[in-house]
């Protein structure tokens, strides 16, 4: 009798508990609110928060320069522009100028940023939130060529899958396209372990709800990218890279994203065994017109806010296990 009960109970428990596809589900409209402050993502997965607060093994600060520094926007696919010019402090100009070999497809042809020139697009757009087959863009658009979920299926799942799908601007998708990060930051554990990668890239801009925020302007931020590995004792330990005074475009319309990143060798990090990641930042300067003072990145406070909008995390041409 007991055995029979067990036989019946086992599949029931199995069915109720096992739910790989339903462990991360959201009610309709979650993270899609039209209100900027309601859209903040500040989840720290696993032990990332604890490791971030107590176990940072190394800290490196990089400056915006070609040799041993970080790259940040500054011009789009047609190049040019200066960091202080709001109309051009976005795109992938610096990275492409400094490392042109990263921006070629397997046939040696140039990959485009996906917007800037007429007719270019970063995704096949079937309408906001609609799935589309983006494979026609794989050999022409940089982010589509390098997107992680193209090569590693598990990056396709979960809310953070939007960080691995090659979409680097809004395209009318609004909050579907990005994550808004407050000064609390966020942390994630990757579904795989990194084996090898030459460089890291993030596609970001600063979004705002400040009055007059629709006027594009440069905003300066210090961004902390922290990578996590397991220590010998089994706990997570962090390797932090701060990009100092990155100039990002800020616009309530939110479409001018920048490619910000660095070579792991320049940051003195061995990328092997990276299993987690977190992003925090500090707002340094935002001279927003039409308002007094600076908007805050503390979203718990009333008033105007600036938040980093994260579109994509890139470990181009990397190997994961």
């Amino acid at each position, binding site marked *: 009798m007991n055995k029979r009960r067990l036989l019946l109970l086992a599949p029931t428990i199995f069915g*109720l*508990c096992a739910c790989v596809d*339903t462990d991360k589900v959201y009610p309709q409209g979650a993270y899609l609110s039209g209100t900027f402050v309601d859209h903040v993502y500040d989840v720290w997965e696993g032990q990332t928060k604890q490791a971030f607060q107590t176990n940072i093994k190394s800290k490196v600060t990089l400056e915006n320069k070609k040799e041993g520094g970080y790259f940040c926007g500054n011009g789009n696919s047609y190049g040019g522009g200066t960091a202080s010019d709001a109309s051009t402090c976005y795109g992938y100009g610096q990275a492409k100028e400094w490392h042109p070999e990263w921006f070629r497809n397997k046939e040696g042809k140039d990959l485009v940023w996906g917007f800037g020139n007429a007719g270019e697009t970063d995704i096949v757009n079937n309408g906001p939130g609609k799935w589309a087959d983006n494979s026609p863009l794989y050999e022409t658009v940089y982010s589509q060529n390098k997107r992680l979920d193209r090569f590693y299926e598990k990056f396709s799942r979960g809310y953070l*899958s*939007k960080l691995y799908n090659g979409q680097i601007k809004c395209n009318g998708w609004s909050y579907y396209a990005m994550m808004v990060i407050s000064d609390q930051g966020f942390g994630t554990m990757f579904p795989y372990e990194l084996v090898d990668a030459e460089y890291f890239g993030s596609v970001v801009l600063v979004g705002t709800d400040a009055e007059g925020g629709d006027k594009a302007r440069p905003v300066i931020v210090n961004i902390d990218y922290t990578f996590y590995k397991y220590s010998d004792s089994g706990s997570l330990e962090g390797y932090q890279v701060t990009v100092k005074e990155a100039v990002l475009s800020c616009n309530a319309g939110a479409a001018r994203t920048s490619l910000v990143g660095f070579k792991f060798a320049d940051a003195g990090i061995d990328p092997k065994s990276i299993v987690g990641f977190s992003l925090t930042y500090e707002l340094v300067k935002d001279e927003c017109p039409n308002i007094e003072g600076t908007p805050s990145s503390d979203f718990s406070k009333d008033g105007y806010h600036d938040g980093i909008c994260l579109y994509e995390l890139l470990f181009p041409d990397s190997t994961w296990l």
Partner: protein
Amino acid sequence: MENKVESAKKFTRRYDTVFAFLTLELVALTCFGLGGVTGLRIMEILGFFISLFAIPFLRLNYTQEDFKANLKVIIPLGVLFLLIGCSGFFCRLYGVLGNGSFINKLSSIIVMLAESIGLLGFFLFGMTINGNKAAKKDFILYALLGGLALYCVIVGLYSVARYGIFYAARFNGMFYYYKGVLFPVSTEGKMLLGFSFAEVSLKYGCIASILLGSSGACLFAISPKNDRRRFAIFASLSFIGILYNAVIPYLPGLVFIGISFLFGLVYSLIRRATKNNEGAQKKVRFIFKIVWFVLIGVAAVVILLFLIESKAHLISNLCNAIFHRVPGFVSNTLSVADDVLYNGAPDLGKINLGSLLFGYNEASLNVHLTRFFPLNFLVENGLIAFLLLVALVFFAMRNSRDFLARGEDDLFFRLAVTGMMLAAFLYVCFYADEIPLAHQSTTIYPFSQSNYMMVLMFLFGLSYVPFKAKEGNNHE
């Protein structure tokens, strides 16, 4: 002539077991959906060539005159199959029309023809396996239901492991992210596509389980006391189909399985009540005839009105008014009429004859596919195929009546076949989904070109009551 019959007899005596085995094997694999779309094409081609071995069997069962008498069914059926495989819509979709290399076009033509000859092959399988003494009725059902059951068990277990049980109810209104896009959990299931699993709409994903579950109509013709083993086997197989729908839970699936059970119950009750009572039997046949003619009349009027649909869009508005309570049902009738009659450009005001007769010949996703299979069929395959399908449905109704009325032997088999056909066809009339793959919302996966259509044609072949030239019309 006698020599031919003699040689046919020799052939069938020697090869009946082999032929039965090959047929049932292929049917079981098709029910299972082995190999996905590519596998299906292979089954279709294999099915056609193996069905050529059916010719000696047909020779034994049919005289030349009999065969001629049955041509009035077989020829229109052949035309229908040809139009299912090779309509204007599919010619455009597979790249036969328009630009493209000769090799690509040739391979597309082969794929389309495979569909047509495959349907014919499976119909012939059904026709001939009935007369093959090596294939017992139980074995035929084991092959059919075994393939479906294996599919349901594998996909069902995987689905439970991925979503948990009762997920459609537990996560109703909840969404998950895939590649940055939101997808609803409660309308999605799993499907075995080739040798991997794919996310599919529940509407499409549950067809196999509905076919399997609805076979339970046969239980009303099996005595659980006297024939316990048979009852247990078919009850278990049907139960797998029901369970598959229950653990989701998918209510429409359970409803259509219920319809099949209801049909089995009502039929067996009527049969019992009219047993040895010719007067009552005649009355039942008369009522059936009346209902049948009324349905034909209704269908004719609806089709006629649909065809004379002018810019006033009378029918469309009427349909939408009637069915507005069922979300999505025939809501695109207006657009379907425009697609078929005007090839999607009603403003030009000219009826596009090519599109009307052979299917909407713009293979674009802008085609207005609905939840109503016959309307989708009209868009994809054109008016000729549509009218042939309607004729086939009404013929199948009358044919099924005669099939069911064939004596007392093997009634369970006939109820299972009829119940499955009834439930599956009614289901796709209300819950068709031509673009079922959740994560590939640009891939058309037409029901008429699916393995389920093959199964339906096999079932129709099984139920086919041939015309006899000498004894007059077998179908009264």
